[in-house]
C-alpha cells in the first residue's frame, strides 16, 4: 500500500540524512511513498504555546491535504512532527470545540476536513505493516558483531504512544535484531536529550547528553541509533565538547535507524547520507 509522506522541516535541512536513508530503505523494501503537496509546519515551534487553537488548525491543514489527496495513512518520520500531528488528530477527535474550530478554519481555505487520516511513524509501519521478516530478507551485510543501543527520545511515545510501549519501547530494538545486529538494552531509551537546552542552557544540556553517551559506551555499544533529528543532533554534535568538559571520552557514532537499515541492506553510503555524519562507523563501513 502507498503511504503519504510528511517530511517536516528537519528532514529537508539538518536531518537530510534521515530523509535520504528513509527514502532509500523504503525503496528497497518496495514501499511506495508520496510526499504531500504544499505542507506546512508541524507545530513543533513556539506558536503552539502562543495560540494553541490557531496552531491546531495550522497543523490540521497537513492532515486535510493528505485527506484531499485520498490517502489513508500519513507517515511522519520526525518525532516532533509525529507527536504534533498525533496530538492534533487526538484533540480534534476528542474535543468537540476544537473540532468545530478547526473544521471552520479549514473550510475557509477550501478543505472539507473529516479527521480520518491515520498518523503513522516509519517504525510502526516497518514493524507492524511490513514486518521484521521482510526486513530480515533484505539484509546483505553481516552485522552480528555490531552492538547497538536504540534511543527513542521522548516524543515518539509521550504523551501519546499509539504503537509502542510508553515506558519501555521496543520497535527500534526489533528492527536492530531483524538486521542481525545485537540490540543492547538500556534504561535510558526515553530519557530526555535536553531538547533545545544544548543551545539555551548549555551546561545542563551538555550534562544530559553526557549521561546518555557515557551509559551507551558503558554498556559496550558501538553506536546509538535514533528516530529523531533533534536527538540525533544533540547526541552527535557536542561529543568533542562534552568529552573534554567531563574528562571522559564519550565519542560514539549516532545514526538514524534508517541509516543502519541501509547499511545492512548494502545500500551505497551516499544514498543513505553517511557522508553527512560527523563520526564514521569504521567497523561496518570499512
Amino acid at each position, binding site marked *: 500500500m502507498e503511504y503519504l509522506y510528511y517530511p517536516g522541516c528537519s528532514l529537508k535541512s539538518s536531518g537530510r540524512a534521515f530523509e535520504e536513508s528513509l527514502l532509500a530503505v523504503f525503496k528497497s523494501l518496495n514501499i511506495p511513498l508520496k510526499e504531500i503537496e504544499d505542507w506546512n509546519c508541524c507545530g513543533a515551534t513556539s506558536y503552539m504555546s502562543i495560540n494553541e487553537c490557531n496552531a491546531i488548525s495550522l497543523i490540521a491543514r497537513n492532515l486535510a491535504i493528505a485527506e484531499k489527496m485520498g490517502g489513508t495513512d500519513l507517515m511522519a518520520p520526525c518525532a516532533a512532527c509525529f507527536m504534533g500531528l498525533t496530538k492534533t488528530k487526538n484533540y480534534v477527535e476528542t474535543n468537540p470545540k476544537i473540532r468545530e474550530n478547526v473544521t471552520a478554519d479549514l473550510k475557509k481555505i477550501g478543505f472539507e476536513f473529516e479527521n480520518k487520516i491515520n498518523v503513522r511513524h516509519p517504525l510502526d509501519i516497518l514493524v507492524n505493516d511490513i514486518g521484521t521478516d521482510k526486513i530480515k530478507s533484505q539484509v546483505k551485510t553481516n552485522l552480528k558483531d555490531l552492538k547497538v543501543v536504540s534511543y527513542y527520545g521522548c516524543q515518539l511515545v509521550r504523551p501519546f504512544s499509539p504503537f509502542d*510501549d*510508553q*515506558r*519501555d519501547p521496543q520497535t527500534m530494538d526489533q528492527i536492530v535484531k531483524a538486521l542481525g545486529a545485537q540490540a543492547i*538494552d*538500556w*534504561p*535510558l531509551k526515553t530519557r530526555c536529550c535536553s531538547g533545545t537546552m544544548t543551545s539555551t542552557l548549555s551546561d545542563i544540556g551538555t550534562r544530559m547528553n553526557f549521561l546518555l553517551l557515557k*551509559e551507551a559506551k558503558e554498556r559496550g555499544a558501538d553506536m546509538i541509533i535514533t528516530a529523531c533529528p533533534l536527538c540525533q543532533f544533540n547526541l552527535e554534535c557536542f561529543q568533542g565538547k562534552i568529552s573534554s568538559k567531563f574528562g571522559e571520552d564519550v565519542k560514539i557514532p549516532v545514526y538514524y535507524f534508517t541509516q543502519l537499515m541501509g547499511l545492512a541492506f548494502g545500500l551505497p553510503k551516499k544514498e543513505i547520507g553517511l557522508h553527512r555524519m560527523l563520526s564514521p562507523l569504521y567497523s561496518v563501513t570499512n
Partner: protein
Amino acid sequence: MTNQKEEIRIGFYICHCGHNIGSIVDCPAVAEYASKLPHVVVSKDYKYMCSDPGQELIQKDIREQGLNRIVVASCSPLLHEPTFRGATAKAGLNEFYFQMVNIRENVSWVHEDKDLSLIKAKDLVRAAIHRVAYHKALEKKKVPVNPDVLIVGGGIAGISASLTMANAGKKVYLVEKDATIGGYMAKFDKTFPTLDCAACILTPKMSSVLKHPNITLWTWSEVSEVSGFVGNYKVKVTKKPRYIKEELCVGCLACVEQCTFKEGKFPDEFNFGLSKRKPVYMPFPQATPQVVVVDDKTCLHFKTGKCPQTCMKACDRNAFDFNQKPEVVEINVGTVILTTGFKPFEAKRATNYGYGKYPNVFTSLEVERLVNASGPTEGHVLLRDGKTHPKSIGIIHCVGSRDDKTNKWCSKVCCMYSLKLAHLLKEHSGAEIYNFYIDMRTPGKGYEEFYDKLLNEGVQFIRGRVSEVNDWATTPDEKGKLIIRAEDTLIGRVRRIPVDMVVLSVGLEPAEDAQDVRKMFNISCSNEGFFLERHPKLAPVSTFTDGIFIAGACQGPKDIPDSVAQAGAAAAEALALIDSGHVELEPNTACIIEDRCCGCQVCINMCPYKAITFDPDKKKSSVNEALCKGCGTCVASCGSNAIFQNLFEDEEIMSELNGLLIE
C-alpha cells in the same frame, strides 16, 4: 377490585427526593400539570414519597377518594417499585394497578437545564398516566425454594459461606476449579494486622469443609451450564479429568516420587514458579482434598504416549486412570453464592518497573512464598539466584492500582500487605527496607496501629510514586544493584535509591474468567469488571438476579476479614430466601393464546430462557411461567399475534406511547 367498566380514578404523586429531584424538576408544577390530565383525581407533590407518611398519603387517598390507579414519579423502579406496590396493596388495591415514573436517574441526575427537565418530566408522567388506565389486576405466583445451595470458588470466602450454610443444615455443593481449596489465603505466610499464621487459621477450615456431612466438595471442576430461576436453578458441573480416582487416592505421594521425571521440571503454580513440580503433583502439603493431580499438558504419557508410567505402577491403590474424560454432573439448587475471587495485576504490564527484565524484581505474591517457612526457600529471603541475601529491599506500592495507564481503582489491601511484608522481610533478612507509597491507606481495626508499629521498627517510608526501576549505576558501588527512582514529595526532591531487591505490591483485578462466570449466572459487572452488587450500600451481596449472591474479592478488592464478613452476609441472605420456603414470581410473563397459535414454533427458537415448549398433539406452543423472564422476544416474534405479555399488553404500550407523543 376494579374492572375495566369501572370509572378510572388515578392518583398521581411526585417525589422531591429531598434535593435529588426537587432541585432540578419543579415538582409542584408537574403535580399541577398532572391534575389536569384525564382520569386524574388526586395530584400531589411530597418531599419523600418512600417515607412512611408518603406511603400513608397514597393509602389514605385510595380509601377516601376511591382511587383505583396509582402513579408515582420518583426514583428508579429498581429501588422503590416494591415499596409503592406494597403501599398500593395495603390499601386494598391490586398492586399492579401501580405505575412508576423514574424522574431521578432519567431526569434530575442527568440533566442540568431546569426548563427542559420540566418538559421531560411532564412527558414521562403523561405517558405513565395514559398507560396505567389500561393496567389489569395480576397475581404473583408462589414457587417453592430448593434448599440446596451452590457455592462457586473455594477461597476463604467460599469456605466461610459453605461452612455457614452447612452448619445451618443446608446441603452445599462447593465447586473449585483448582485441585485444592484454600485460594490465595493458603499461599500467604502471615495475615495482617495480627500476624497470625495464615495456614494455622485456614487449614482447619479447609478440613472442616472436607469432613462436613452437608458439603459436597468438587475440586478440579467448573460450572458449565446454568438454567432455571430463583429457588429452582439447574446447574451442570464439569469435573475435569485429574486422571486419579479421587475416592481411592490417599495422598501418599508414592506416585510423585516414582514419576519418570526425577526432579520437578515445570513451574509450580502454588509457588508462582519459584519452585518446580512434576507432572503428577500435590498442589501443597495441606492441599484439600489430599488427592494428587496429573497435569496432562506436561505429563509425558499425554505428550508422547511413550511414558513407562512408573507413577501408576507405584500406586498400590490403583487410583490411576489415564482414560478419564470430563464428567458432567447435574444438580438442582435454589440459591447460588459466587466467591470466584480476583486475579493479581500482571506485574509485567508496568514496564517501567522491570519485572521479567531484572531478575531481582519480585511480585508481592512471590515474596509471600519466600518468607513462608514451607515455601521454596524455607522462609529464607534470597535473591533469584537462590543464594544471595539482600541487604536492601524496596517495596513499591500501588503497582497496577490508582494509575490512569492501568487500573484506576485503589486495590485496598496493598498498603496493609506491604506493611506486613516489610515487617516480615525485615524480620527474616535484617535488610534495610524502603516503602514507596502514594498515600498510606490503613483504615480498619488495628490497621493504623500496625502502621505505627512499622514506623517504630525502623522501616523507611518514602512518599512518592516510583517513576522507574532500572540498572543504571552511576557509581561503582551501584553496580549490580537495582535503582529505584522516585519523587519524595515530602522533601520535594527526586531520589535514587539503590537496592538489592524490589518488591512490586501488585493490585487486584477481576478474575480472568469473570466475564464468563457473569454471563453464565446472568449477573452484571461494574465498569472495571468486578461483579455488581444490587445496591452498593443496602444490598451489597445480592445481585440483580434473584437467588444469586456474591461475596469476597469477586465483587471488588477486599481483605480476609471483609471477605469472610461478606461470605457470612451472603449465606444469611441465602438462608433467608431458603427458609421463607417460597419465592414470588413477577407476573410479567408471556402467555400464548391457544386459539391463535398456528404451531409454527418460531417463538421457541427465539426464547433465551427455554421457557416455551411445543405440544405435538395439540400442535400448540405454551409458555412455562416459572421459566419466563418477561423479555418480550417471543411476543415480538409471533406472526399470528398469539402471544401477549402481562404488564406489556399492546394497549398498555400503545397508550403509553400515545401519552408520550401527544402534547
